[in-house]
């Protein structure tokens, strides 16, 4: 065993110089983790070996470690030789007999595996339980390692332990992070698929609801188609009679023919609107004039209101800006609200069944109000009326208003119900303006 203290007397200035350089080396080694921070195991092993070669004037330094991914890492630095010219694995094999034991000797002298003669080596295990790796420092100096050199080597090995540990933690954190990210992505994808399936189911349900609602109106809608057809037939008969009189009244004939064209178009328009309501098309984003959309629904429900003796009044604000959305879906909302209102008023005395549809601009966009004079809503109904499968009707499915809510919400709006101060229920929804 050789150490500085045992090397006999040294003069004071030599000792001070020696201590000074030792302290500066110590500081340098302590500073190594700052260079390593966030780095790979291979990088800080190489930095450590270079530092030891430089500071301790070693002829040879070897390190072996398990890197953060569990792989074996082996590295050799030899004074005055480029790292690329050295076969680390070969040296590792040569050192193995001296390194493998549980408690390697503090130092020993071996045949120089990299040149001539003898080499003093000092194998050091590092790691919290000595299991992270091995550091072997070697020098051709027979008195290697001195006590100070041993101290510095231990400091270096401790630094390597800390660095490897930290790198391991960082890697595990990174891995955990990546794993979490992957799982989040997976769940997001699953959720997206589920929500797409849900949207599809919802669209399908909305379509069924629309078809059902239109089916309820079938008899009344026939009236709306039959009316212009019957008028057209009357006009055709009249035209024939105006032609048949002497002299024929061609002006009247022309007027009759004009009206026949108008009435034919009117019937075709009604049929067109009915077809749009029955079609199962993907939702659109068009500019929709809400008043016009309401008027069309009012035409389709005209007969139904007459049949049920409901007096309908519309107060549609002039110059409402267009909103962005699916016209047919929005018409479905209005259609559902009208049908609900008519049903709500069916138990009332005839003559007191009133329905008011009103539109106006408000802070959040366009506000549509459907107010009836029916029996109104209980406090419980007010809260639950938009829930799926909630119904107060004997034959109801409880889906109509729930579908209304999803349609309105898809359009970025809000729908709610309230009680009229007089009697009846008020249903209102807002639709935001584009860009709002």
């Amino acid at each position: 065993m050789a150490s500085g203290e045992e090397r006999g007397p040294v003069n004071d200035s030599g000792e001070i110089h020696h201590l000074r350089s030792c302290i500066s080396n110590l500081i340098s080694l302590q500073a190594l983790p700052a260079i390593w921070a966030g780095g790979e195991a291979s990088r800080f092993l190489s930095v450590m070996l270079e530092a030891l070669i430089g500071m301790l004037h070693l002829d040879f330094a070897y390190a072996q470690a398990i890197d953060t991914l569990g792989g074996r890492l082996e590295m050799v630095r030899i004074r005055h030789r480029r790292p690329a010219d050295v076969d680390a694995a070969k040296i590792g094999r040569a050192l193995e007999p001296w390194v493998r034991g549980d408690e390697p000797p503090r130092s020993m002298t071996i045949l120089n595996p990299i040149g001539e003669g003898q080499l003093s080596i000092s194998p050091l295990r590092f790691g919290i339980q000595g299991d992270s790796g091995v550091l072997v420092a070697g020098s051709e100096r027979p008195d290697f390692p001195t006590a100070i050199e041993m101290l510095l080597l231990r400091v270096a090995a401790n630094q390597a332990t800390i660095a490897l540990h930290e790198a391991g933690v960082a890697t595990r954190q990174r891995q955990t992070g990546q794993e979490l990210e992957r799982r989040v992505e997976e769940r997001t994808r699953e959720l997206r698929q589920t929500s797409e399936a849900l949207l599809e189911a919802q669209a399908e349900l909305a379509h069924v609801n629309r078809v059902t609602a239109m089916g309820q109106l079938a008899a009344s809608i026939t009236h709306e188609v039959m009316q212009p057809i019957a008028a057209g037939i009357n006009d055709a008969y009249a035209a024939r009679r105006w032609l048949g009189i002497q002299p024929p009244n061609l002006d009247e004939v022309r007027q009759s023919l004009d009206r026949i064209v108008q009435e034919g178009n009117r019937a075709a328009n009604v049929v067109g609107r009915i077809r749009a309501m029955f079609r199962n098309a993907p939702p659109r984003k068009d500019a929709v004039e809400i008043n016009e959309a309401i008027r069309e629904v009012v035409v389709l429900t005209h007969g139904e209101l007459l049949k049920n003796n409901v007096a309908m009044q519309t107060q549609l604000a002039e110059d409402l800006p267009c909103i962005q959305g699916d016209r047919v879906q929005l018409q479905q909302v209005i259609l559902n609200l009208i049908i609900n209102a008519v049903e709500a008023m069916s138990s009332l005395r005839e003559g007191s069944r009133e329905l008011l549809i009103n539109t106006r601009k408000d802070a959040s966009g366009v506000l549509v109000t459907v107010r009836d004079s029916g029996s109104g809503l209980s406090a419980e109904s007010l809260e639950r009326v938009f829930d799926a499968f909630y119904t107060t009707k004997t034959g109801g499915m409880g889906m109509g208003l729930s579908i209304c809510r999803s349609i309105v919400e898809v359009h970025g709006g809000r729908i709610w119900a309230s009680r009229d101060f007089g009697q009846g229920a008020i249903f209102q929804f807002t639709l935001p303006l584009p860009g709002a």
Partner: protein
Amino acid sequence: MTEAHGVVFIVDDDAAMRRSLESLFRSVGLRVEVFASAQDFLRCTPPNLPGCLVLDVRLPGLSGLDLQRRMAEANLDIPIVFITAHGDIPMTVRAMKAGAVEFLTKPFRDQDLLDATHLGLERDREARAQRAASQELQNRYHSLTPREREVMAYVVAGLLNKQIAAELGMSETTVKIHRHRVMEKMGADSLAGLVRMADRLSIRVPKS
């Protein structure tokens, strides 16, 4: 000519329907008045002419059947031709029982509507003539003095002048004079004619 044919009232809430019906009736020389609702029709003062009402069953507010009932209550006796886009049997029965001329389902043949309307106008014309005749009869009867009415009642009951004189405590000559005045004022050319008039006036035989 138009005036003599009478006037057709159309009540339908559909503007196209109103215009087409109006044109059809005008083409056969009928005068037409159109209304969008039952209330509008009730507010109008119908001209004193034979009329027929062409009435849509399904109307906002007062329905066609409601209007028919209101008219009956108000003794507004205008024959009604109902038109509807979808009449059911109970509705038809109700309308016909309440005296409708015809119940047509839209679309209908023009001739069916015109026939029904003409029938309605004819009925109204007859009813008007009857009402006028009965009014005239009433006026004549009211022109009789109380004594003459008493004499008339006994005459149509088949009493001889002598018997009437005894009943009323007057001379037979006086009875004869009253009897002659009655025949003259009532415009009766025979006893049989006077009896028919009394029947229409529901004159009862006085109890003796």
